[in-house]
């Protein structure tokens, strides 16, 4: 046991003395959470819009005030004629222009019908769709108010849309679980495979194998520090998301942490497996980054929904462990579900972990023959 502790201490020294390892362990998670949370946002806030109001009456003023007071938009100086629209878009001053035709208010009151146009910058399709949806919703709301105050108002069926679990459709509800999933597989699999292949490359692995330390001690001793540090990583990410984004954990924290440990264990055993098939650190890095990080970002459901993937891709996605962990962590954190709703995914992860450990042991034995 004393031998083992000295060996673990040595692994911690390796980690704390290597600036790059520390960056990967603690710098990247923090940066990713902040970047994904703030920059890659799917909400709109302070989108610049402008108005071309040819009517300039009380109704158009009311509608534009309503749009601008919603908190989503910022009003830029009004345009004076149609020719200015193109220029404003091209210069990038505004994301959308709202146009009221001649006699807008007059038409609306006397004929009960008036048209306005929303012209959005389609070069950014996602933002454009969001902006037009928001403005349409605000105008619909205005319509309803108008209908309510006038006696002749038509009775309209108004669907009331509610988003369960994430009522404001906040983007970081999706990104935080994704980042945890990505970071853990990156840190655990990549770092473990690097640290083990480094010993092979430098010849120290042979010295260790000749020593009285058992192979199992060597592997566990190398992996345990990463287990501890990546667990600290998860807690750091959760605390960060709590303080910065008010991200709640609706389900059981204990269940969440237990599932996280399982996922860490899976990633570590995957890292060990990678190290048994790679001869050099370069190889290990290549396999980890190309074989794990890219598929995790693209195919695990982190960013792109698995339901929309073409046939074949979704099968490939089915063999990716992160895919299951994302389901588990989203369910627990955002929906607040218990174990009975994630047992299938948990079972799959357990089976994968066992498989990776089994394969690693086999490879290791073959090497020692």
């Amino acid at each position, binding site marked *: 046991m*004393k031998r083992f502790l000295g060996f673990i201490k040595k692994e911690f*020294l390796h980690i704390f003395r290597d600036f790059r390892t520390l960056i990967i362990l603690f710098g990247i998670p923090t940066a990713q959470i902040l970047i994904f949370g703030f920059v890659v946002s799917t909400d709109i806030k302070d989108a610049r819009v402008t108005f071309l109001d040819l009517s300039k009456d009380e109704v158009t003023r009311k509608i534009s005030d309503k749009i601008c007071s919603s908190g989503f938009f910022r009003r830029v100086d009004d345009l004076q004629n149609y020719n200015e629209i193109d220029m404003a878009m091209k210069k990038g001053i505004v994301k959308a222009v709202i146009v009221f035709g001649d006699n807008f208010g007059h038409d609306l009151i006397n004929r009960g019908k008036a048209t306005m146009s929303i012209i959005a910058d389609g070069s950014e399709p996602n933002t454009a769709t969001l902006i037009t949806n928001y403005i349409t919703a605000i105008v619909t709301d205005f319509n309803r108010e108008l209908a309510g105050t006038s006696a002749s108002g038509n009775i309209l069926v108004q669907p009331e849309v509610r988003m369960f679990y994430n009522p404001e459709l906040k983007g970081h509800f999706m990104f935080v679980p994704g980042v945890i999933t990505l970071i853990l597989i990156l840190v655990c699999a990549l770092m473990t495979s690097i640290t083990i292949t480094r010993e092979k490359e*430098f*010849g120290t692995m042979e*010295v260790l*194998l000749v020593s009285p330390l058992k192979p199992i001690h060597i592997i566990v001793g190398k992996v345990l520090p990463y287990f501890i540090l990546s667990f600290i990583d998860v807690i750091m990410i959760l605390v960060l998301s709590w303080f910065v984004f008010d991200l709640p954990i609706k389900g059981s924290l204990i269940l969440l942490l237990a599932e996280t440990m399982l996922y860490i264990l899976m990633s570590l055993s995957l890292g060990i497996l990678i190290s048994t098939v790679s001869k050099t650190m370069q190889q290990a890095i290549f396999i980890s980054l190309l074989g794990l990080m890219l598929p995790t970002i693209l195919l695990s459901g982190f960013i792109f929904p698995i339901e929309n993937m073409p046939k074949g891709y979704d099968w490939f996605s089915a063999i990716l462990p992160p895919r299951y962990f994302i389901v588990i962590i989203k369910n627990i954190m955002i929906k607040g579900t218990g174990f009975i709703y994630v047992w299938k995914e948990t079972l799959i992860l357990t089976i994968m972990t066992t498989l990776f450990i089994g394969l690693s042991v086999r490879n290791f034995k073959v090497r*020692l023959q």
Partner: protein
Amino acid sequence: MSGIPVITVKDLVKRFGKFVANDHLSFEVYEGEIFGFLGANGAGKTTALRILSGLSSPTSGEVIVAGYKAKKDPEKIKKNIGYMCQKFSLYEDLSTRENIMLFGGIYGMSKDLIKKRTEDLLEKLNFLEYSDRMISDLPLGLKQKLAFSVAIFHEPKIVFLDEPTGGVDPITRRQFWEMIYETADRGITVFVTTHYMDEAEYCDRISIMSEGRIVALDTPEELKKQYDAGTVEDVFVKIARPPNPPKGLPA
């Protein structure tokens, strides 16, 4: 040299599929001896060394190292041997002292003993000024000496050196061999593989392997007489050169 065998190998065979890496090896190595293990690349030296040091198990035959059978008690063998491989084998990002302490700990030595021996060693090697420097800052010669000192730090019965002087300048090589002599004088058996034939002359006895078999085993002087050669290098060339060189290569 005492004549008491610390390594006994009888009919050792190691097969990888159809390939026979070690073909019925039999030899003994005595306590306090410097035993040179020579052979061309691919002759089967490394395989034999791996078996003796417990990294690999023999297909058949009997191997006794430090009094324990390799098939039955590889773990006990490991406690009684030291090992230094071709690649430099200390941790670059740990200090001299940390490396010594780490390996002392791995071999189960007590803290007090480690401390005492560490100070002795640092003083003996004139290493006190380097004791808290990272290994990566040390010149290669010093690293090599330190690696050897670490390999015998736990006072093993036998130390295996796998081409220990590769890439080292002649002066350091000489100093290194002085350390080997000193170690053997203390009763630690030194089992060394090398490609430098002048080093082979320093050994008490040498064995030369070719194509998986030991083809010669004796003192350097005896072998030179036997093969009518001036140096061990000539002996080696006579023995180890395959009778029919591969096509396309000059004979």
